[in-house]
């Protein structure tokens, strides 16, 4: 059983350099604390260190310097087969993470490894497949699914294990806006219902605005901005350093000089009405 603590993730002076031939410093003395139950978006240009940070946090990469604690435990001192109890990681490419020959069995695979009782496995698998609209494919070979469905299956396979910390690397790539929202809704449910700490790496600023509570922007291995979504999107001048533009609605509101930082069209509409009423 993983112990409950104030901070789900604590990174202290974390640096990481890739060896030759790639040789580059991907993370530079990162200090970051994420509370239990937070929903955090990790943003930044390609190569800014997002995935490296996520892989270090999951225990797949060992930092060159620094310590990473997940739920109070130094994740790099936890045996590999037990790391999944602390942190779940959904990779970008679903083809790398589907191991079984039926969708149902693939989702059950992680729970079986965790020695969950079969009747509970069945209930959890059924629920997650229904939540992610994959239930009708339950007897199909995972590799026969369309790419978007495979991506949702990969997410389902990790989410079903209900890790206290969940890291999802670009979950909405290749998804239409409707399916992208479905995925984000599942992550939100998990975050709200189970108090799962969710860390999402994404380039979709619209989804960040809609779902995340906190945003960490990375640039060349450093934390450029860290704060609430509104705070971060209000600093478009700094965000430009990592080639990130706030969502169109934020840019429009900034252009019109509306007060605050409206994150949705509804909020922007209300802000506009207030200005007009004055």
């Amino acid at each position, binding site marked *: 059983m993983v112990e409950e603590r104030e901070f789900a993730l604590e990174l202290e002076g974390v640096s990481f350099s890739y060896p030759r031939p790639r040789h580059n410093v991907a993370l530079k003395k990162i200090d970051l604390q994420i509370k239990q139950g937070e929903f955090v978006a990790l943003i930044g240009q390609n190569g800014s260190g997002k995935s490296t940070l996520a892989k270090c946090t999951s225990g797949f990469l060992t930092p060159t310097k620094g310590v990473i604690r997940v739920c109070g435990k130094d994740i790099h001192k936890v045996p*590999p087969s037990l790391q999944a109890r602390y942190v779940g990681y959904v990779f970008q490419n679903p083809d790398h993470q589907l191991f079984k020959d039926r969708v149902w069995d693939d989702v059950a695979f992680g729970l079986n490894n965790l020695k969950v009782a079969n009747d509970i496995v069945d209930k959890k698998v059924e629920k997650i497949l229904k939540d992610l609209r994959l239930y009708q494919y339950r007897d199909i070979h995972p590799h026969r699914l369309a790419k978007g469905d495979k991506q949702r299956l990969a997410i389902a396979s990790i989410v079903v294990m209900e890790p206290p910390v969940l890291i999802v690397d670009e979950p909405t790539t290749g998804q239409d806006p409707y399916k992208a929202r479905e995925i984000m809704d599942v992550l939100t449910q998990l975050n709200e219902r189970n108090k799962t700490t969710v860390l999402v790496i994404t380039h979709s600023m619209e989804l960040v605005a809609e779902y995340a509570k906190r945003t960490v922007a990375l640039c060349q291995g450093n934390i450029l901005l860290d704060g609430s979504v509104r705070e971060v999107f209000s600093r478009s001048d700094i965000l430009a350093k990592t080639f990130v533009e706030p969502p169109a609605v934020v840019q429009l509101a900034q252009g019109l000089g509306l007060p605050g930082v409206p994150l949705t069209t509804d909020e922007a509409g209300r802000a506009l009405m207030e200005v007009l009423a004055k």
Partner: protein
Amino acid sequence: MKMLYQFSASESFLHKVDPRSKMLFLIAFLVALWLLPLPYPPLMAVGMVILIWITAGIKPTEYMFFVLLMSPIMVAVIIIQAVTGGAPFQPITLFGTRLFSVSAGGLDTGIRVAFRLVAMGIAFLGFSMTTDPFHWGMSLYRTGLPYKAAFMFGFAMRFFPLLQEELSIIGNALKARASDTIGTSNPVKRIRGIGQLVIPLGLSAMGRSQTIALAMELRGYSIPEEMGTKRTLYRKVGFSGRDVLVWAAALAVLAGTFIKIMA
């Protein structure tokens, strides 16, 4: 740390030598390695490490993983030979107390074979780390191999490190699903883990090769054959003064070996 067979571009002496010359030297080295008795095989292994370091600028730490991977095989070979070899027997003592006896001839053979294996591995590693797979393929084309066969050969060599990287990602994905088959010392679990890795690796490799084949055709890969025109090479593939030096070194190794044997 370097993945096995992973080439990285550099301007070093060894990188610039034609693959055919490197192969010639490699063959001369292997002949010497298998003909010379102890203490030459361990010395040649160390010599190859130094040669790669000096002529290619690749430190041994970069391929230490390979040596570590080989060490259990080396130990096993030495033990098997020492236990199964014939007389004369040599007593093994600890603080003056005789523990057991091993075959003196078997021990000699075991050490010789173990170091030959590791020296061979390091030599092949040195070759692959300094030879662009396509350059290798194209040099074979220049030697008379049909273009498609040469290209396929170079491509297969390029594919190998990609497969290793993919294997590592899939291994991590297995860990993410709480599988205890990765990184375990239990051989049965490890074999089960390999079984789990094979499906995604195979499917991913097939998918990737189909996509690449299609992308190559879209860029006109088969046009010269279809049009009946001769292929030209963008990069120069040929011998230079460096290659003459390497040929001379290969000849010197062979000559030295035969002189030593005859003596």
